[in-house]
């Protein structure tokens, strides 16, 4: 987790495009953690990148118009196999997939989209409730990013037990989402028995969350300047969860059907990761260690899990190792956790003005949030979820594969349309 103040610089070479908002562009250097903010007038420095077209809704630049007879399918929304409100435009001449363009606008925030969620104009404590409902399955990451940004503006330094609680929440979120991604791949491979065991394991983690945070998805646990924990002893369940996970992975790794479907599916090279500005699991599966926990003082000595094959199997193996890594991270900070409210909120809003950005490594990759406070309210709020970037990586990865590979490709990225809300 890193948070940074906003600065302006124009050197973008070797930097990864991280977000394109209406009035500024964010670049990040994943070797040093340095963040660069460009005004939108400097868009010409990055507008040839595919991610720029994707984030700005210039989808025509990503579409393939071929001269051979080919079908253009609209897959979703409300289609079987897509559990969320989202869609894909797929071009194929029968079996092989030639081109995919993800359509993420169905869940966009704001007027004409998900109008019930409104962050701007609200007091930070109230805005926080909205923020954690942008993407519920990554809500601990969202609420942590928001609280970090606001605390930075306000100059509030939180205690180590607050930091520990947030780390625990974000890592638990990673565990159940990684288990979920493995479950989805197992569904695609018709591994019915494994599917049941994996779902039961995910339920165990969600129940642990409920005991620890009072909510299965940790809504309401984060406060500005603090956290609220319930039954800290619930974490003793972690041993059983780890044992169960290890055993399930062992069983799955000897299943030839399961492994074969993942091997060589949706392959992405390290060069493609650089070209697409891909992050998180997509990058780590292709040997590129893009993980913002490297730069966080809360994760001393953190080393990202990296696999080099770049296929769906590599991405699933990153997840397997990350679940174990997350469990050991939680164990390290477990002693710091205290039940009850730790510093309950903060009331000096009216005096606080300023802007800040925060990054948190959410389950599929890093999440970026920008907050501007003025007059005790959120004046401006911008967010870029990891899925907003990695849907493009998925689209490139699945090209050239056949239709039956589609779910194995998609689920290995573990994305959510609710997390891609920043797109136009």
């Amino acid at each position, binding site marked *: 987790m890193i948070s940074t103040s906003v600065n302006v610089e124009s050197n973008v070479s070797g930097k990864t495009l991280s977000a394109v908002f209406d009035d500024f562009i964010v670049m990040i250097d994943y070797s040093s953690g340095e963040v660069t903010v460009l005004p939108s007038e400097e868009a010409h420095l990055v507008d040839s990148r595919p991610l720029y077209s994707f984030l700005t809704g210039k989808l025509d630049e990503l579409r393939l118009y071929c001269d051979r007879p080919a079908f253009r399918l609209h897959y979703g*929304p*409300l289609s*079987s*196999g897509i*559990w*969320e*409100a989202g869609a894909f435009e797929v071009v194929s001449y029968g079996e092989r997939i030639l081109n995919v363009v993800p359509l993420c*606008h*169905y*869940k*966009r925030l704001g*007027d*004409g*989209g*998900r*109008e*019930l*969620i*409104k962050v701007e104009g609200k*007091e930070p*404590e*109230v805005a926080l*409730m*909205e923020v954690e*409902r*942008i*993407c*519920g*399955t990554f*809500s601990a990451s969202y609420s942590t990013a928001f609280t970090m940004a606001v605390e930075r503006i306000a100059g509030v330094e939180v205690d180590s037990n607050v930091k520990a609680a947030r780390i625990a929440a974000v890592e638990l979120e990673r565990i159940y989402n990684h288990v*979920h991604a493995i479950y989805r791949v197992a569904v695609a491979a018709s591994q019915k*028995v*494994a*599917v*049941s*065991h994996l*779902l*039961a394991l*995910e*339920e165990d983690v*969600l*129940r642990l969350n*409920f005991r620890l*945070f*009072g*909510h*299965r*998805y940790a*809504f*309401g*646990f984060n406060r500005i300047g603090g956290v*609220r924990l*319930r039954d800290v002893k619930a974490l003793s369940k972690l041993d059983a969860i780890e044992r169960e996970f290890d*055993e399930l992975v062992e*069983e799955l790794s000897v299943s030839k059907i399961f492994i074969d479907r993942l091997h060589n599916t949706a392959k992405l090279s390290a060069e493609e990761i650089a070209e697409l500005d891909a992050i998180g699991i997509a990058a780590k599966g292709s040997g590129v260690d893009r993980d913002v926990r490297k730069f966080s003082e809360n994760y001393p000595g953190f080393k990202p899990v990296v696999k080099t094959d770049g296929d769906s199997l590599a991405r699933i193996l990153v997840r397997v190792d990350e679940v174990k890594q997350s469990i050991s991270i939680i164990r390290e900070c477990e002693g710091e956790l205290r039940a009850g409210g730790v510093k309950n909120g903060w009331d000096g809003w009216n005096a606080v003005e300023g802007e800040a950005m925060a990054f948190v490594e959410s389950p599929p990759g890093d999440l970026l949030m920008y907050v501007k406070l003025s007059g005790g309210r959120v004046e401006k709020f911008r967010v870029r979820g990891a899925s907003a970037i990695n849907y493009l990586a998925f689209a490139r990865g699945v090209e050239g594969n056949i239709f039956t590979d589609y779910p194995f490709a998609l689920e290995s990225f573990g994305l*959510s*349309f*609710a*997390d891609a809300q920043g797109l136009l």
Partner: protein
Amino acid sequence: MWVIRGLKKGVLTTKFPEEVSEEERKMLRVRMCPDSEKCPLEFCVSCPLGEEREAEVVVRRKIPFSKSIHVFFADVGSCNACNREVEMLNNPYYDFHRLGIFFTPTPRHADVLLVSGYSEEMVKPLEKAYSAMPRPKLVIACGACAVEGLERTNLKADVLIPGCPPSPLLIMKALLLARGDRV
């Protein structure tokens, strides 16, 4: 060996609706908002600060027969947490198939349209899915967003499930009530 693992684990499945354990009872409760004016969603009732009480599933209309039901799930702009809880019904802890409830991948075979979330962009696809369903079609709003969001569409929710998100057990209870079961 999967078989041995399964046997070792024993039966995880809830005895709901016949019996409800202490842990499950909590999942059927909601927590009222201590300051509803500030809350983003009227039917959220999942506030960790709030006072606990029994969840009230509102049933305005039921399916006029008591048989197995087929559910078409439509996410129309959720935050994905409601979706996850619906997906969790497949889990051996709940195993909703044993109660004669099944998901169907097409609205043409569905008795029930289970809706989560709300986005204006999804209103048209939702109405199209509804019109493809055979009668008698029931609409269930799953979670605070859908309860509030459906009000903005031409569809009328027949069953309202409060919560943000509602627990899988509460969704299961609502599906049984919609079928006319006594829960």
